[in-house]
């Protein structure tokens, strides 16, 4: 089937198999930051944005993205670096395999929520699993990043 969409701002037109998951489609287009950790929408690794909203691309058909704007970490390199530095300082980047999905969700959270408590942060990110860090380092990184975004120190 024919689809037309924008991946990281670039218009793409394609003829795809109707059952192609969005995850596989964007990987085939070179967006290799998008990872699969499960096949059941449980781990958050495949998080990308459709029209700026985070979705789990392992269980979304590419066809559903027709006419829409897809964003992956490849399209947010500067922001990824900016936040990623906070993660790296904490040593919370670890194996790195869950980093892209996690960072996509953190950046979405920063756009979506205006005011948020520690519990709100955990709630927003609860779908992003990580097996290396025990989550504490990621949390410290998010807190430090938010503080910096509000004019605090880096």
């Amino acid at each position: 089937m024919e689809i037309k969409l924008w991946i990281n701002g670039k218009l793409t037109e394609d003829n795809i198999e109707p059952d192609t998951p969005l995850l596989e489609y964007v990987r085939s287009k070179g967006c290799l930051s998008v990872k699969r950790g499960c096949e059941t929408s449980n781990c958050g690794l495949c998080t990308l944005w459709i029209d700026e909203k985070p979705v789990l691309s392992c269980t979304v058909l590419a066809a559903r993205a027709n006419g829409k704007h897809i964003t992956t970490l490849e399209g947010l390199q500067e922001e990824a670096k900016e936040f990623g530095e906070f993660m790296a300082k904490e040593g919370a980047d670890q194996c790195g395999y869950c980093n892209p999905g996690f960072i996509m969700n953190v950046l979405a959270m920063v756009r979506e929520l205006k005011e948020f408590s520690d519990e709100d942060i955990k709630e927003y990110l609860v779908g992003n699993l990580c097996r290396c860090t025990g989550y504490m380092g990621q949390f410290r990184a998010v807190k430090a990043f938010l503080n910096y975004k509000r004019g605090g120190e880096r």
Partner: protein
Amino acid sequence: MKIVNTSIMKKDAMALVTGKPVYTDDIAPKDCLVIKLLRSPHAHALIEEINTDIAKKVPGIHSIFTYKDVPNKRFTMAGQTYPEPSPYDRLILDQRVRYVGDVVAIVAGENEKVVEKAMKLIKVKYQVLEAILDFRKAKDNKILIHPEDNWKALCPVGADNKRNLCAHANDGDENIDKVFEECDVVLQNTYHTKANQQTPMETFRAYATMDMFGRLNVVSSTQIPFHVRRIVANALDISKSKVRVIKPRIGGGFGAKQTAIMEVYPAFVTYMTGRNSKLIFTREESQTASSPRHEMEVTIKIGATKDGIIKAIDLYTLSNTGAYGEHGPTTVGLSGHKAIPLYSKAKSYRFRYDVVYTNTMSAGAYRGYGATQGIFAMESIIDELAEKLGINPITLREKNMVREGDLMPAYYRETANSCALDRCLERAKAMIDWDNKYPRRDMGNGKVRGVGLGFSMQGSSISNVDVGSVAIKVSDDGFYNLMVGATDMGTGCDTVLSQIAAECLDCSVDNIIVHGVDTDTSPYDSGSYASSTTYLTGMAVVKTCEKLITKIKTLGAQYLNVDVEKVDFDGKKVFDLEDNKEISLKDIANKAMCNNNNTLYASESHSSKVSPPPYMVGIAEVEVDTETGKVDVINYKAVVDCGTVVNPALARVQTEGGIAQGIGMALYEDVVYTNKGSLQTHSFMQYKIPTRKDVGTIEVQFESSYEPTGPFGVKSIGEVVINTSSPAIANAVYNAVGVRIRELPITPEKVFMGMLEKK
């Protein structure tokens, strides 16, 4: 020290946080044959007939292999130094299938769809056999899981395939019963830990290619590249020189990737077809056909005087290795050797074990490697003994715990040369405010909070076995290439080893370029497991730097035209101690590339006669809902003695991660089979690992000691950090509501039923 003990960022951090394509599937060639494995629906069966003719006709299918096509020479997939203690009990494909998920056929085609279509068209006729699913019934059962004649054990580990025994041993004091007779109090209980999945976020995966020299190249997400080379060569029955293994960035290991779960399949396909091939395990395959923690049942008998002096510890472990014996004979040893020595003052100990085959998936290495299971049992019974004696569990531990300078008879008679366990306990107790919180606080809303603690120890590398090696060369303008044979799993060993090198060479970490493992070019390293990298490979770095500095000084002195005894090296220049003569490293490096007989290159290995244990104290504060039995971890405080900390940020995160994994093991994680032996927990829907809302607040501190055999006083940290969670939480639950859980995980059902029974 300038660089050791600083929290510098990992060298690959920016690639990892910006999502660069650095993992196996990201770098695999586009033209790979896609491989999938047809798996057995039966727990135990013989393949009577297998017909692949129709399946082979599916357009796009390249090859299908069955047991008829593979070498009939058994091997093990365990990533261990040769000769592996794990039995040679595997074939690439066997006529006998031994668990639900065992591989029946290898299917390779142009894409996933055609392969999946072909898999459905393979006709297999099975003779279904009776299976053994309960590991308590396996030993000397009339059903034999490995009756084959070419089954082979390379080491004397008490294995006997005609008894379903993968290993068996007796160790310690034969006259222990006499010591028990002298004790005022004797207590015996059995503790059951279940299989757990490591679940690294990146599933198992590898690809294979043939290079221009006709050699098989395997790129694999593995912790053990050098062992994979041997395993692949053994499986294919070809020369080891024909195989090259490369490890890219890997997405987590935790021991799962210390077994070559799946590398032999793409290796075999590429070897047979000449085509590039790749195999990416789904999460479901990673759950159903991998290498979870060994299920163990640990029975401890402990004897003490009425004032709380422990005199005898008798420990028996029954371990379930599943259908194959990977790591079976070795994990079990740690259940005793790393639990009993925590109380090394006991004058008598005995340790016995059996490791049995069953028709469940093969167990394997998982962080903690048997110590986790033994320590759950030991740290639980210590609390039970304290209660029986009417002594505070901390006081009982203070009376009996191992301290610096103590001989540890059950730990291969090693001495605790560096041990801050007593200081860890002191600090952890203060961090949690033990005296005000022990044993419980009723929160008044149907919820009760309790505190409980656990000790832990592990080793640092396998003594007299493991080898760590590195090579360093001086390149243009005086930068250093550090080549390591140890695998960075994300914990940062490439960076940590660079820190050690920079400290020794008196330069910045940026002046060290690090390269991960390629078996063709990296110096041999047994692999990243057994908590060995920073301790063992770190020492190889120190030795290599010493040798390299001598070479730099020799060449510098030659260029300065003075005697080598009269010069020194400060990291930037070689200078004459008496005159003002000097030559920069930059000039030495560049000069050395013309008319020089002294290569500025050094490579050293290191192996250790001892395996100094790191120690840890973990204290959990849990909240039990008395209406449902649900347990929430509120706070977890931990203090670790890993000797000198090389990179505090990385060590801290690794500790927090280990504790969180332990919380999963304690409360949720359970590998559950149906009564036919098929796995119920085959996805993240059913197998629940902790989320960020399940781990409470984890706080970690370090209490340093100085290990004389480690680089800059270093011991290990990778594994010790997972071991306290289960006993600390079990003890906290008991202290909260008086329910003693001796079988993990501690589910709400078990706690609630326990509370009902008490009423």
